């Protein structure tokens, strides 16, 4: 259960559905999890320098807007709490809190401290899809954590995620490469972010966060990149056979091998282009 304390706590739908159901968790990582925390509450909103605690222990110290910290934690259930700089669970009430957040072994998740659609501070938990991709591919995830209305996300001028609202996300696997990314107000041609050139590197997950506040005119993009998830190419066929040296005893099979000539010859001819 996630409980509201002082700020409003929202949980992305995927976060609740995925942690317990994740099937592809590597066995050797079963007891640890990777958690990133993104400070996405803009400056001047009362959280300019904060400390993040997990189960009463300091997790992140002196955390500032626009910063992403990645920590390795034992699998378990966590009460997360964000305190003003220098305050502790012993002497203060948290600015934001989320209780009983399940963190299964092997999971990769991101917790965002951000504004909800109406501009109030919120915590959101997202599970990051770190499944491997085929060679040549990249995964793009876009998350709306801004005090802003619904948006469309465009790549090279084409809408790839339509009508995304806070605190929701879209994910897609695309050919790795360079794209022009932009964010429009949903259903309009009004661009609120970008266009900006972005590289989606092969085998990486690029998570783009739209954060800030439309009203305060400080909407911005933040990114998190998780690397090394390409399964690699299927092989390297780098020979045609024209220099093959055969062992002398192979000639003993010459008569029998004659049967194979027709087949091999036909394939050779077929492979010549």
């Amino acid at each position, binding site marked *: 259960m996630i409980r509201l304390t002082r700020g409003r706590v929202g949980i992305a739908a995927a976060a609740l559905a995925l942690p317990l159901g994740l099937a592809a968790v590597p066995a050797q990582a079963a007891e640890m999890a990777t958690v990133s925390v993104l400070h996405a509450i803009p400056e001047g909103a009362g959280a300019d320098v904060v400390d993040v605690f*997990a189960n009463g222990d300091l997790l992140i110290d*002196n955390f500032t807007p626009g910063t992403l910290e990645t920590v390795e934690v034992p699998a378990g259930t966590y009460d997360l709490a964000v305190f003003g700089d220098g305050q502790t669970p012993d002497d203060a009430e948290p600015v934001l809190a989320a209780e009983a957040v399940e963190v299964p072994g092997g999971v990769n998740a991101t917790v965002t401290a951000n504004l909800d659609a109406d501009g109030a501070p919120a915590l959101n938990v997202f599970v990051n899809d770190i499944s491997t991709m085929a060679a040549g591919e990249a995964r793009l995830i876009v998350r709306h954590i801004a005090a802003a209305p619904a948006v469309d996300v465009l790549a090279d001028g084409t809408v790839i995620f339509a009508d995304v609202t806070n605190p929701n996300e879209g994910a897609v696997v695309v050919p790795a490469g360079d794209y022009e990314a932009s964010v429009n107000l949903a259903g309009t041609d009004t661009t609120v972010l970008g266009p900006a050139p972005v590289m989606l590197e092969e085998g990486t997950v690029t998570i783009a966060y739209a954060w800030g506040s439309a009203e305060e005119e400080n909407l911005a993009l933040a990114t998190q990149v998780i690397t090394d998830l390409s399964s690699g190419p299927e092989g390297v066929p780098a020979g045609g056979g024209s220099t093959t040296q055969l062992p002398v005893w192979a000639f003993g099979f010459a008569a029998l091998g004659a049967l194979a000539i027709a087949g091999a010859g036909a394939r050779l001819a077929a492979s010549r282009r």
Partner: protein
Amino acid sequence: MTRPRPALLVLGAGALALGIGTVGIAMAGSGVHVEAVGTRPAVATGAAAAGVVPGATPSDATAPAAGQDSASPYRTLTRKDATTLPRPDRTPRPTQIRIPTIDISIAVDVVGLDDRNQVEVPYDVARAGWYRFSAKPGSGTGSTVIVGHVDGVDQGAGAFYDLRQLRPGDTVTITRADDRRITYEVVARETFAKSDVPLRELFSRSGPERLTLITCGGPFDPASLEYTDNIVVTALPVDSDGNLGETR
């Protein structure tokens, strides 16, 4: 260079002889080298490396946050400014490879994947190919993969025919499109049965900056029209003082 071209009759005979040889290699066990000289630096892939975020300094990854004592159950991996976007990489691509000990000095094309998701090796066996999803030389991290034919179907010996003769200590020089030259020193030459090639490690853009040269080797299987093995040469960059690149 002239190499023998066996008559079709001999090729046919080989179909049977080499079929037997292939069984022998398979029995040697998966993941085991057919042959190896030298040592390739280890590279973590997948979940172990998945938490690593580029752009963070090594000290970020090891030092606990201020106030996070040694008894803390949490370990900080990275801390970074998330407001910079991953911009297109303008590092120049490799254009030429030179390996003096085996008399190679050839052009390097850009290659991708074929329709079977295998690396596309340049059809012209006199040219090598830089796999465009691998690291660029001089980028500081990961594997730069350059492939070349050992031979062609009907073109005789290929650019990488003599890769099998490279030894640790041999020098490889890559020239980039900006004319910068980067010199590497061979640290390993390995032969893998094709079913055992650690492709994910060899192609990983994580780990130490390194050059990975790949061609075919072992017996030719006329049934599949492919060689049974891959020969892989790993080289590390050498600085101006002749010191080998860091092998984390």
